[in-house]
């Protein structure tokens, strides 16, 4: 537990209202979006300004107390959980958009700004913030930076790291440093690139400068359905190989479609299809987008699509997308618990890996629904289950692990956008050897020698080879 004097000092910084000490209050923060991990923080503090945050981190540095930064808590890898010996610093009150510079297409925000809010604020200038994780109406830009978040439209526009130009970072010792430059050019080695996706282990991003992208002037959204997952996977490869770069290419299997269609987000997806594919093309020039859409439609039909339908209105387009974006929520209704998985495979391996996942699900007698960013080969196999059933949680764990093994065996990786957190620590040695893991740990110690920020995440310390370097 956290010493009472520390709690009093925290309250003196932010006010009693913004410190949570009661067991029930702290329990609210015991999980993130992944319900399979629970840890109760020692105390929760919610600063309202950067100065308060700096004072808190300096206080914790003086006393050598570990801390965990947290945004909206929508993460899916247990990355923002704190143990009872640690302070959870919730950043949602640091939610100001500090600057929008339409001429240079950039914005400066505090970490607690909700992803969608930035796009809404940029819209009058004909701009938007391109990375669009499914949780974008709730998740924060700070959390996106920590996780290097993706989203459907990252196929064309790139993930978070592509869009972060500069960072002001509060390090574990309470020092503020500026990384990168206002225009995005690295200032020395690319420490912005290194920081993005470090899951909070290198410090807290207190000011984030991001690139804004022009809103596309033309959009076409196509819905295709397929009699087999294999056919759908091959259609995806064919579109990518044709040279057209869709803004997004999202696939849902029959189980996922059923969940969506049974929910309030019903989008009119055909229930009898083995897979539906949502393809979006966008650009600045209407005739070019129309021509590309026609090419894509032909390719899909030539690759076993039973039907291809184009959204006729913005409302229809929105409905098609809502079904996709709320697919996780819809699946959550299927059963008491849901494990959302995340892995990436080479695009051409999609059909084989999907068959392997179906086989694993059958063997463990589990319901697995697949919804994924097909254009990137980024899979989200989701397992619906009831954790109160004796032995079921163990089965889910074993099946998850086998699914991950299948993805790694296909030349893929264990996470494309959700991060390692605590959930995937055990898989890290499957893709990185002891040298690579030791290098990661040594780099972390350059930023945080005592390993106090978000301890116990990302790098499985036991698997690190001895490091002879300076920061060993």
């Amino acid at each position, binding site marked *: 537990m956290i010493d009472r004097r520390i709690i009093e000092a925290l309250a003196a910084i932010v006010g009693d209202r913004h410190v949570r000490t009661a067991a029930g209050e702290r329990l609210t923060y015991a999980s993130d979006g992944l319900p399979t991990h629970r840890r109760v923080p020692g105390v929760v503090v919610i600063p309202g300004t950067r100065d308060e945050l700096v004072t808190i981190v300096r206080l914790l540095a003086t006393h050598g107390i570990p801390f965990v930064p947290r945004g909206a808590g929508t993460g899916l890898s247990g990355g923002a959980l704190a143990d009872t010996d640690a302070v959870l610093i919730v950043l949602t009150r640091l939610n100001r958009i500090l600057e929008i510079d339409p001429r240079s297409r950039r914005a400066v925000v505090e970490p607690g700004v909700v992803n969608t809010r930035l796009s809404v604020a940029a819209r009058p200038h004909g701009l938007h913030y391109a990375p669009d994780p499914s949780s974008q109406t709730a998740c924060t830009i700070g959390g996106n930076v920590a996780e290097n978040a993706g989203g459907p439209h990252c196929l064309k526009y790139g993930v978070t790291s592509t869009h972060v130009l500069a960072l002001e970072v509060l390090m574990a010792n309470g020092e503020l*440093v500026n990384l990168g430059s206002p*225009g995005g050019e690295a200032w020395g080695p*690319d420490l912005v690139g290194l920081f993005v996706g470090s899951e909070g282990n290198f410090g807290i991003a207190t000011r984030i400068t991001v690139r804004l992208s022009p809103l596309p002037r033309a959009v076409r959204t196509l819905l295709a359905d397929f009699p087999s997952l294999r056919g759908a996977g091959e259609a995806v490869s064919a579109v990518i190989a044709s040279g057209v770069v869709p803004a997004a290419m999202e696939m849902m299997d029959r189980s996922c479609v059923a969940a969506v269609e049974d929910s309030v987000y019903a989008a009119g997806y055909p229930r009898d299809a083995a897979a539906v594919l949502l393809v979006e093309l966008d650009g600045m*020039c209407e005739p070019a987008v129309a021509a590309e859409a026609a090419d894509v439609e032909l390719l899909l039909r030539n690759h076993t699509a039973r039907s291809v339908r184009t959204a006729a209105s913005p409302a229809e387009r929105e409905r098609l997308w809502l079904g996709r974006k709320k697919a996780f929520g819809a699946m959550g209704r299927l059963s008491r618990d849901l494990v959302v998985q995340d892995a990436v495979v080479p695009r051409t391996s999609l059909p084989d890996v999907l068959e392997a996942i179906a086989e694993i699900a059958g063997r463990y007698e589990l319901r697995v629904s697949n919804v994924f960013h097909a254009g990137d080969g980024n899979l989200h196999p989701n397992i619906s289950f009831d954790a109160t059933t004796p032995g079921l949680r163990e089965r889910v764990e074993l099946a998850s692990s086998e699914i991950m093994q299948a993805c790694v065996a296909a030349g893929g990786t264990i996470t494309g956008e959700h991060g390692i957190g605590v959930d995937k620590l055990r898989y890290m040695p499957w893709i*990185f050897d002891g040298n690579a893991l030791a290098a990661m740990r040594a780099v972390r110690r350059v930023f945080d020698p005592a390993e106090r920020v978000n301890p116990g995440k990302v790098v499985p310390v036991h698997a690190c080879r001895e490091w002879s370097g300076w920061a060993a």
Partner: protein
Amino acid sequence: MERVGGVSILERVRALLGTEAVDLTAERDGVPRVAPPTIDAVALLLGTAHAEGWRIRLEGAGTWMPGDGPADLALTTRRLDQIVTIQPQDLMTTVEAGLGFDLLRNQLADRGTWLGIDAPGAQGRTIGSILATATAGPLRHGFGAVREHVLGLTVVTGDGRIIESGGRVVKNVAGYDLTKLQVGGFGAFGVIVLAHLRLRALPRSDLTAVVEGSRDELARVAGDVMAAGLEPAALELVSPALARRERWTLAIRLAGSAALVAEGEVGLRAATEGRAAELRAEEAAAFWRHAAEGLTARAVTLRLGGVPSATEELLDLIQHQLGDEWVMATPSLGVMRWAGDATAERLRKFRKALAAIEVPLTLERAAWPLRSVVGHFGAYREGVGPLVSGLRKTFDPGERLVVAVSEEDHAG
């Protein structure tokens, strides 16, 4: 040649890697050049160098950075020149770092694929050189900085460890992104020996058009092209010497599907009021090649990155402080590259003026006497210096790799 315990370094290296790994004919300043044939051989060499205290300078094909750092040995990656795989369906390739970019481009084109990088310098520059210096060219406008094309790397650290980062797939957030540290690290954090790169489908259509005029006027035309919603692959402002034309030139490259390029052409005519002159395919190739090669015609090459709206202000500053004979700029991104001759004092003064307006200057290429005092990165902002030096000591604990990282810190 220095002798250690009665055995010369050269004899040790021959014993370690075999006689053929040492290229004696290449000695220029008396520093023997070693070309390890495998990644393991690089690791063996650097591990030994670390233990023995040998200083190592790094080279690719020797066409970009002058190979003149004070060292006991020069390590060249030129024998690591294999294409390990090209996967056209998955749009990725794995290549060894010593491979020449021109060779890779031809192999990729044969398989209908393309790498969206057009680095400055000679056509035969190695992949490792381009990645280590993060020298993107005009295509950065359409396809992003060098780091956007790199999926994963294998690096050998200054003490001989082989470290893999990233992976082979296009989306990957497993662990810290050590790849980003290496791309543009100038070898200060190890030697890049292998890279997994992201490919694109070869553009079905590829067209370059140019507009000539005064620099300021063309900057406005570039703004019009952007505002018209064209999506060019490159939009580059090129000085007369680099364009080999009488006046400044705005070069617009459209690349992609036939529909995209055809519509782009229409839009371009409107946005430039018919002034854009389309180049024939071979003229376009020659235009971009000459510009890229021209940037190494002088002793120094450097790049600046400001905000896009300050492009003209930055070009003015270059003109006043260094002269703007050899300049290329990407107005949409605020990045620009300068080549010329300048003293260390002048460059430091220029860098200081830029720092005041929050614009970093990266010294991309210069002879050792200059780069050792100016540094690739110069002075850092408060708090960043200790991080860079900590990272340097992490990946090269003995500081064996001779890299002029910053003003304060030049190993050797």
